């Protein structure tokens, strides 16, 4: 089997360099040719490698080549190597494939943006970083990719840096991600101390060097999971993802839904032997995954911004993936990662099409009745909504139900009632998901268009300031768009929607009955089959719950989305996202700022540092006042001193003899 990892890696890097250096002078067509070409070649190589992998026996489907010896220092040896196995192949296909579609879509969405070239340079840079993260064969280069995707995310969230909100969101994302990077780094230190190597192969083949269940094994797995939780927006490090929606919508689709945020899921799957070595850590993964799934789904229930709903939904779906990995069914996690990449990218791109058509409007209160105006978007969005709600035969059904089945199976096998709770949480979340997704869907596409009639809600001065700045960057508000002025998006944007819709329908057959994905991944992740009867029970319950969710949404919102002020305490709590941001402000940010102010203006800066440095300066000044008296400026004084010195020297030697 060939290993084309380097070829997949090199094209986006080249594209980034070319666009970064020459983007300013290239024409629009030239920029697209470079960006699409780089990503397309990358996808072709990934596809070719995948096909060549299918041609060899499952046992031989792994290739680990060293490209370059980077550091060789006695026991420390770090190589840049490429590991290409079925897990890598799946991830690369998702990253480059969805990445290519979003590159194409962006040409339409970012049309007319003054920084067109910068956007595509960043996108290529992201693809490069993500591929590096996936093909690395050791933890150090994983960390490098891990950090670089964080950087790409920072750059793209803050793409419209002329406004203040994207800048703040970018900083928030970066800070939270660095917490995760720190966890990953500490885990790597522990791995090196205990295994003496950072290569996946060396570590995983010798995983029992650290006793199973020991404190060290648990610490390694938990630190890795800190990194995963930060990157994949799990409790309690999820706050950055909703804010990241300030970036352009294609970025939200590519980075904050389909690929980068799934890096945590990938890492847990990649290091599953380390997690299997630490059962406590696996419980944590399952618990956090379940808690996040439910928590984020409840917040998504009453949000008004179309992209925020999708962001919380992403967090919730990532929770599902971790839930699957926590019960030891890694294949289901990767399966859901793949199908989620299709339908969630589709949802975001559909939302982008709506936002584009409405000249930047993201508030669902000002949408509605778009079915007739945006037919392609309507149908593709419907498919994605059905898929995420888990209705057969769409892809989300197969992957979500394999996760829920795995949770129930674990509960039955271990008899641990907490796993029953986990399964229950998963089922409940499935119902909530169906409800809030159809609330969004009905609200946007059915009923009457509300864009031109709605009176602006109370606005603070700050928001108005922001709107003024907004004129200069981003999809500025051109005021409400008249209903008959709304037009379907151009083909360059609708084509990716259609392709993703097709994938969202057929993607589920990867895990259909005989489960080809399970077999394909089995050399890396041990195949785990859920018995058919358990699977059927779980599936029946979850589909029933999802249907209930859809029915409720239909009863409430089929006439379109009506916003009512609601002073119910519980509603207010959920509507304000449990006041988490406010609490963060109170507990973390305010005290830190306060301490900073105290140091900056109060005692330490004033009394200690200021007086200290002033005192030192005064000492030197006093000494120099004394010394300058020596400099009379009369040449003969100097001559006299020289003479006296010479005489002294002579006397010294005369006396000494």
């Amino acid at each position: 089997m060939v290993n084309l990892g380097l070829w997949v890696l090199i094209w986006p890097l080249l594209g980034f360099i070319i666009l970064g250096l020459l983007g300013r002078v290239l024409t629009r067509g030239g920029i697209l040719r470079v960006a699409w070409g780089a990503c397309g070649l990358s996808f072709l190589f990934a596809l070719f490698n995948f096909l060549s992998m299918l041609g060899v026996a499952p046992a031989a489907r792994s290739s680990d080549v060293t490209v370059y010896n980077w550091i060789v220092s006695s026991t420390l040896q770090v190589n840049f190597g490429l590991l290409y196995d079925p897990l890598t192949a799946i991830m690369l296909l998702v990253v480059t494939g969805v990445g290519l579609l979003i590159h194409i879509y962006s040409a339409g969405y970012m049309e007319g943006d003054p920084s067109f070239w910068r956007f595509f340079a960043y996108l290529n840079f992201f693809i490069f970083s993500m591929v590096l993260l996936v093909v690395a064969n050791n933890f150090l280069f994983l960390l490098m990719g891990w950090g670089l995707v964080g950087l790409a995310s920072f750059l793209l969230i803050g793409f419209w840096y002329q406004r203040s909100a994207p800048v703040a969101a970018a900083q928030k994302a970066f800070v939270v991600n660095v917490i995760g990077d720190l966890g990953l780094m500490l885990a790597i230190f522990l791995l090196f101390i205990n295994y003496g190597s950072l290569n996946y192969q060396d570590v995983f083949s010798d995983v029992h060097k650290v006793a199973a269940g020991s404190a060290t094994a648990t610490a390694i797995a938990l630190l890795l999971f800190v990194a995963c939780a930060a990157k994949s927006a799990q409790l309690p490090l999820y706050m950055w993802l909703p804010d990241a929606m300030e970036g352009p919508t294609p970025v939200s689709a590519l980075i904050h839904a389909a690929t980068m945020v799934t890096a945590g899921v990938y890492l847990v799957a990649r290091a599953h032997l380390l997690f299997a070595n630490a059962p406590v850590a696996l419980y944590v993964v399952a618990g956090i995954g379940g808690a996040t799934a439910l928590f984020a789904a409840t917040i998504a229930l009453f949000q008004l911004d179309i992209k925020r709903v999708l962001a919380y939904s992403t967090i919730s779906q990532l929770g599902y993936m971790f839930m699957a990995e926590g019960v030891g069914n890694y294949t289901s996690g990767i399966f859901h990662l793949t199908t989620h990449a299709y339908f969630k990218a589709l949802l975001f791109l559909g939302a982008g099409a709506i936002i584009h058509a409405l000249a930047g409007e993201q508030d669902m209160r000002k949408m509605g009745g778009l079915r007739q105006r945006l037919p392609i978007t309507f149908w593709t969005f419907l498919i994605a909504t059905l898929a995420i709600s888990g209705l057969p035969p769409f892809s989300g059904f197969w992957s979500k139900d394999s996760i829920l089945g795995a949770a129930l199976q674990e509960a039955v096998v271990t008899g641990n009632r907490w796993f029953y709770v986990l399964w229950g949480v998963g089922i409940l979340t499935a119902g909530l998901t169906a409800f809030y997704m159809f609330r969004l869907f009905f609200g946007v596409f059915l009923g009457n268009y509300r864009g031109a009639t709605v009176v602006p809600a109370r606005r603070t001065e700050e928001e108005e300031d922001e709107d003024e700045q907004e004129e200069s960057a981003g999809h500025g508000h051109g005021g409400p768009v008249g209903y008959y002025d709304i037009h379907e998006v151009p083909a360059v944007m609708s084509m990716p929607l259609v392709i993703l819709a097709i994938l969202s329908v057929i993607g589920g057959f990867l895990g259909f009955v005989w489960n080809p994905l399970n077999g394909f991944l089995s050399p890396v992740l041990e195949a785990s089959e859920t018995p058919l009867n358990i699977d059927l029970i779980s599936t029946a319950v979850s589909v029933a719950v999802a249907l209930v969710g859809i029915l409720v949404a239909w009863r409430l919102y089929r006439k379109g989305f009506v916003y009512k002020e609601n002073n119910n305490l519980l509603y207010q709590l959920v509507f304000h996202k449990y006041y988490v941001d406010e609490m963060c402000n109170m507990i973390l940010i305010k005290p830190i700022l306060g301490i900073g102010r105290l140091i900056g203006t109060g005692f330490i800066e004033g009394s200690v540092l200021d007086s200290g440095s002033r005192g030192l300066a005064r000492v030197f000044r006093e000494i120099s006042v004394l010394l300058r008296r020596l400099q009379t400026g009369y040449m003969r004084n100097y001559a006299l001193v020289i003479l006296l010195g010479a005489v002294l020297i002579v006397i010294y030697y005369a006396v000494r003899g």
Partner: protein
Amino acid sequence: MAVTSSVPLVWYLIVSAVMFAIGALGVLMRRNPLVIFMSIELMLNAVNLSFVAFSRFLDTADGQMFVFLVLTVAAAEVVVGLALIVSIFRTRRDIDVDDMNMLRG
């Protein structure tokens, strides 16, 4: 002693010391840089005199070689010094060393 001479070494040294003292006092007391230069030359030649005297009495050529060295350096020094004096005179129309105290602390 290889060389017999009517004048003993000490006399030479006394003359040399007197010349040196006159030169040093001249440097310290005069205000005209040209005179100061001449005084410096006097000090140098006082040293030269003692070099030559020692050379003669110790019957070696070392002292005489030093004298040539000193003469060369003195010539070079005078060149630089006179150039300085000329350029100072051009800018200030005055070369009294006591007025040149701009670097006073």
